[in-house]
C-alpha cells in the first residue's frame, strides 16, 4: 500500500494501561479473559495491544473474524505468528517448513484424520474408555483433571503411534511430553530461544523423543505390517517429488498433533464431566438419550455415535463457555484495509475464541450454561475450532472422542460434586481455561 493511501486510513485504537516493561503481557498473563474483554470494550472491532513487544490487533465480532479466517496465508501468515512452536516441533516441520512442504505436511496430517481412519479410532477410543473405568467399582471419587489427562494420553498415543507403543509406553514418554509443554508459555512469545532452564529441558526432550520415534519407525519399516494408525499414514505420505517425511519431520508431526489435540481434548473432557455433575437435570436428558441409542446392547462404534444430538449440543455448550484455546494469531505480511482502518504489515492480528463466545448478540445471557441454545446462524460467531483453511483439522476426532467417552461413562455412572459449586470455578492462568486443580467428583454406579 502506498504511503499516501496509508495516510488516508485510521489507526486501530490502542488499549490503555500498557506497562513500560512488558506492555500488556503482565495483565494478559494474570487473567487473559478479563484483559481481552477490556480490550474489546475499549476498542470495539479492532483494538491494538502490546503482546510482549509485538503490536497485536484484536479483531472482534463475526465480520472482523471472518476476514481473519478467510484472508489467505500470504497476507495473514499462520506460520510467522507461531514461530514459538519451531523449537518444539523441530527444524523443517510445519511453521519452519517452506510453504509448499508445510502444505504437504498438513495434508498428510489431515489424511490421518479422514473418514476412513476415524472408524478405527472410534473402536480404539471405546476400548480405552472401557479399560479406564474397569476398576472403578460401584462408587468412589475421582480427580478428573488427572484422570482425563491420562485417558487422552492413552487414546492419543494409541491412535497416533499404535497399540504396541501405547502399551509399552514408559513414564519417559509422559515426562518428555511434559517438558515440551512447559517449553511453551507466555514468555516464549517474547523469545523462545533465550537461556532458560525450561527451554533447555524442552530441547533435550525434543531430541530424546526423536530417538524414540526413529526406533519405532525403523522397527515398522523392517516389519512390513499394517497398523491402521496415524503413524502409518504419516510414514506413507509423500511430497510432490515422491520423497517421504524424514524421521525429524515424522517426530515433529507427531508432536504437533499431540500438541493440538491432547491438552485441548483433556480439558474439554474434564470440563464436560464437571458441567454434567453441576447440572443433574441436563445429565438426565443425556442419559435418556444414550440409553435409547444403546438399548439393544449395541457397542460404541463410529456408526452408533453418528448422531447423538443432545450430547453434541451439551459438548458444544461446554466448548462455548470453556474453549480450550486462548487466542488465535496471524502475522500481517502486507498492509490491509479493514473498514477504513489500516492493519499494518509487521503487526499481528488475533481473534479471541472466548470473547467471541460471550457476545450477547449471538449468545443471550452469555455466562449461563445452557445446552439447549441454538448455534447462531452467523458463521464465525461460534468458533471453538477456529475456521477457514486453518480450522483445527482434528475437530471431528475431538468430538468423536468426547462422544465415545461420555457414551461409556453416562450409561454406567452418575456424577456429583463433593464440595460447594464455588470450589469448581475455572482457572485462567497459563493461557488455558480449565477447571481448578484438584477437581474431585463422586461417582456412583447407576441403578435406574
Amino acid at each position, binding site marked *: 500500500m502506498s504511503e499516501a493511501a496509508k495516510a488516508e486510513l485510521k489507526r486501530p485504537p490502542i488499549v490503555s494501561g500498557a506497562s513500560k516493561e512488558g506492555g500488556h503481557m503482565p495483565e494478559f498473563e494474570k487473567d487473559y479473559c478479563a484483559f481481552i474483554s477490556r480490550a474489546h470494550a475499549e476498542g470495539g472491532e479492532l483494538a491494538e495491544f502490546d503482546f510482549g513487544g509485538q503490536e497485536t490487533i484484536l479483531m472482534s465480532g463475526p465480520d472482523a473474524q471472518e476476514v481473519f479466517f*478467510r484472508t489467505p496465508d500470504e497476507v495473514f501468515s499462520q506460520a510467522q505468528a507461531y514461530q514459538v512452536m519451531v523449537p518444539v516441533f523441530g527444524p523443517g516441520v510445519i511453521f519452519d517448513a517452506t510453504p509448499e512442504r508445510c502444505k504437504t505436511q498438513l*495434508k498428510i496430517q*489431515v489424511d490421518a484424520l*479422514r*473418514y476412513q481412519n476415524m472408524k478405527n479410532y472410534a473402536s480404539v477410543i471405546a476400548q480405552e474408555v472401557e479399560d479406564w473405568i474397569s476398576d472403578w467399582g460401584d462408587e468412589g471419587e475421582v480427580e478428573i483433571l488427572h484422570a482425563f489427562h491420562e485417558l487422552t494420553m492413552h487414546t492419543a498415543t494409541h491412535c497416533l503411534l499404535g497399540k504396541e507403543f501405547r502399551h509399552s509406553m514408559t513414564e519417559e514418554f509422559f515426562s518428555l511430553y511434559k517438558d515440551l509443554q512447559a517449553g511453551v508459555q507466555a514468555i516464549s512469545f517474547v523469545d523462545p530461544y533465550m537461556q532458560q532452564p525450561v527451554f533447555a529441558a524442552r530441547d533435550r526432550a525434543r531430541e530424546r523423543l526423536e530417538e524414540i520415534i526413529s526406533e519405532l519407525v525403523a522397527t515398522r519399516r523392517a516389519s512390513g505390517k499394517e497398523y491402521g494408525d496415524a503413524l502409518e499414514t504419516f510414514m506413507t505420505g509423500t511430497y510432490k517429488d515422491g520423497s517421504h517425511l524424514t524421521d525429524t519431520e515424522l517426530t515433529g508431526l507427531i508432536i504437533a498433533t499431540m500438541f493440538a489435540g491432547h491438552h485441548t481434548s483433556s480439558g474439554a473432557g474434564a470440563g464436560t464431566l464437571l458441567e454434567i455433575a453441576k447440572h443433574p437435570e441436563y445429565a438426565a436428558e443425556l442419559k435418556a438419550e444414550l440409553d435409547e441409542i444403546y438399548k439393544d446392547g449395541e457397542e460404541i462404534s463410529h456408526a452408533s455415535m453418528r448422531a447423538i444430538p443432545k450430547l453434541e449440543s451439551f459438548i458444544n455448550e461446554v466448548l462455548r463457555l470453556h474453549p480450550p484455546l486462548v487466542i488465535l494469531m496471524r502475522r500481517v505480511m502486507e498492509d490491509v484495509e479493514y473498514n477504513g482502518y489500516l492493519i499494518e504489515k509487521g503487526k499481528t492480528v488475533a481473534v479471541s475464541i472466548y470473547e467471541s463466545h460471550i457476545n450477547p448478540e449471538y449468545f443471550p445471557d452469555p455466562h449461563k450454561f445452557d445446552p439447549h441454545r441454538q448455534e447462531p446462524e452467523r458463521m464465525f460467531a461460534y468458533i471453538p475450532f477456529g475456521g*477457514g*483453511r486453518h*480450522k483445527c483439522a482434528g475437530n471431528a476426532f475431538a*468430538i468423536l472422542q468426547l462422544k465415545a467417552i461420555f457414551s461409556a461413562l453416562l450409561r454406567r455412572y452418575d456424577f456429583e460434586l463433593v464440595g460447594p459449586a464455588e470450589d469448581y470455578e475455572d482457572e485462567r492462568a497459563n493461557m488455558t481455561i480449565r477447571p481448578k486443580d484438584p477437581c474431585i467428583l463422586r461417582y456412583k454406579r447407576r441403578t435406574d
Partner: protein
Amino acid sequence: MKVKVDLDLCQGHSVCLGECPEVFDVVEQEDGYPQVVVLIEEPPEELRKKVMSAAMFCPNRVITVED
C-alpha cells in the same frame, strides 16, 4: 435442491463422500488439502436425505443446500 460448497472451509475430511458418494467426491489438489467436488449441482429429490446428511455431518460446515 441446489448444492453449494465453500472451498475456503474445506479440508477434505471426506465425510460427505461417505454419506453421499452420488453427489460428492473429494479430489487431491496440486497443493495442500484435498477438496470436495460436487458431481451433481442439482441432485434429484430421492437423494435429498443423503445430501442433507452430508451437509449436517460435514465437520467444517462446507456444504449448504438451497431449495
